[in-house]
């Protein structure tokens, strides 16, 4: 980067190409496998180019779940995953932005206590308090419901912290000017603060959507009804490691469908995603 060496740039290209191959190969193989017939995959002779069964496999996977067993169609799972991911993202953003607003711009008793009560929730991932959380969700009759899927996962302070940090950088003069114009707290929020936060909200949405879409343990525990299942859970039921009966083309088509939405979101909104990632974690 400082010297000029004729072959100096070959090494980075070489390493990066190797990296891309390692990263992309499993995904490529899944796409290829989803276009071949099961028998071609099962005898271990699958070629590295696409086969001709792609449309058929995807159609069956989405609509009927192949019918060989009583499996749910993957289309329904996609819908569940989508509702859950969007619900978590929007829910978390909504509750966080208003609580951060109150904490930064309002003077009320127990303001700091409120902040710390929320802040501490950063400390424990849902995995370590999983069974008591399950029991409470069950006592509240929220098993097999979208509210049960979504609400316990939005109980965390990451987004609140991000908004709080951002709100602290909003110049005081802006608030005063807005007040002088006769704007109350609600108008200030909608007319001034919300428009300023649009990029933050969008970045957070990308991250939270992926967080929600990729959840494993929680949906596994609280969905007992097959039609509530998310695709990340569903995929485990399709593969069977212990015996050879797995329909690999269906399994790989499901994997591709499960990857498509989050990968698309990340690739299309790279810039926002990177911005949000670096802000939320640091």
């Amino acid at each position, binding site marked *: 980067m*400082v010297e000029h060496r004729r072959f100096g740039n070959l090494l980075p290209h070489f*390493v*990066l190409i190797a*990296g891309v191959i390692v*990263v992309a190969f*499993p995904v490529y193989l*899944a796409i290829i*496998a989803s276009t071949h017939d099961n028998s071609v995959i099962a005898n*271990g002779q699958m070629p590295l180019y696409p086969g001709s069964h792609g449309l058929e496999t995807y159609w069956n996977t989405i609509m009927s779940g192949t019918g060989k067993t009583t499996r749910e169609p993957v289309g329904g799972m996609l819908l569940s995953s989508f509702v859950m991911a969007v619900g978590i993202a929007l829910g978390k953003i*909504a509750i966080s932005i208003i609580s951060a607003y*109150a904490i930064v*711009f*309002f*003077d009320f008793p127990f*303001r*700091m206590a*409120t*902040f710390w009560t*929320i802040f501490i*929730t*950063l400390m*424990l*991932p849902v*995995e*370590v*308090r*999983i*069974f*008591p*959380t399950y*029991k409470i*969700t069950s006592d509240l009759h929220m098993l097999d419901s979208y509210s049960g899927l979504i*609400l316990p996962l*939005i*109980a*965390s302070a990451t987004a609140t912290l991000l908004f709080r940090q951002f709100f*602290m950088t909003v110049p*005081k003069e802006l608030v005063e000017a807005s*007040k002088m114009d006769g704007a109350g*707290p609600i108008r*200030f929020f909608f007319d001034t603060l919300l428009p300023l936060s649009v990029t933050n909200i969008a970045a957070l949405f990308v991250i939270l959507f*992926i967080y929600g879409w*990729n959840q*494993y343990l929680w949906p*596994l525990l609280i969905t007992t009804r097959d039609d509530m299942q998310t695709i*990340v859970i569903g*995929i*485990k039921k399709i*593969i069977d*490691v212990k015996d*050879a009966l797995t329909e*690999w083309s269906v*399994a790989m088509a499901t*994997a591709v469908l*499960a*990857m498509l939405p989050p*990968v698309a979101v990340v690739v299309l909104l790279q810039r926002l*995603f990177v911005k949000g*990632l*670096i802000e939320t974690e640091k």
Partner: protein
Amino acid sequence: MENRAIFSGRLLACLLVFPQLAISLIFFYWPAAQALWQSFLVQDAFGLSTEFVWFENYVNLLKTPEYYQAIGTTFFFSLLVVFFSLAFGLLLAVMANRNIAGVQIYRTFLIIPYAVAPAVASVLFIFMFQPGLGMIARALQRNGVDWNPVLNGNHAMILIVVVAVWNQISYNFLFFLAGLQSIPRSVIEAAAIDGARPMRRFWTIVFPLLSPTTFFLIIVNITYAFFNTLGIIDTATEGGPNGSTATLVYKVFLDGKAGSDLGGSAAQSVILMIIVIVLTAIQFRYVEKKVHY
């Protein structure tokens, strides 16, 4: 915290914090307290009566060899995952930080694993490593390796480490890249003028300047290896064979699911909570102050 409180509507403020407080109390504090309480109780075999037993569950837990096996597994697994995902992430970030053609395309491809769910990543690798049909499994078998993660504990461990590292590389890559880009060019140019070769420049200047990023990533990666890999393990190995891939979190899940020993499972949860709290505290103590060695 700076007080810029301008508005005084108390009722409105309470209404604004209410949803988050309510959700935190119901789905965070209540279950965390329950886990703590449960860990001091013993339930009879039929779940009819409970007895308060102080630390008996913890003592029993520390007497079981399986628990020590899980501690060892977790430690070994996390060490491998943290080391390899950081090393590859850093290597790729250093290369992608050069001003070379097509660097944006490389970056785009390299962030893909972040978006893939751990359980789905697991399925992709199971397909490649499935004995008899997977491409890599067959290549290994052709070369005389009797590859079988269902029977061989070491093979199962290798499988979940590979998946976990693959899944985590993007995250480390992005943070290292951001860290590298914040290092002023002038510092590196000055060293180059002093005659320091690229490798020397990297280890004596760039790497130390990256220490806050590295430290932050170590903590985040430990947390990842501990908790977020549950989907990988459950899909790829289910903790087997013979518990060789059952980490602490996976054991909480298995023991609690079987439902026979709620107190023991709760005690395990509490020990994990303490581990996370310690990790988070370290993170805030040092990372907030931007480590400078």
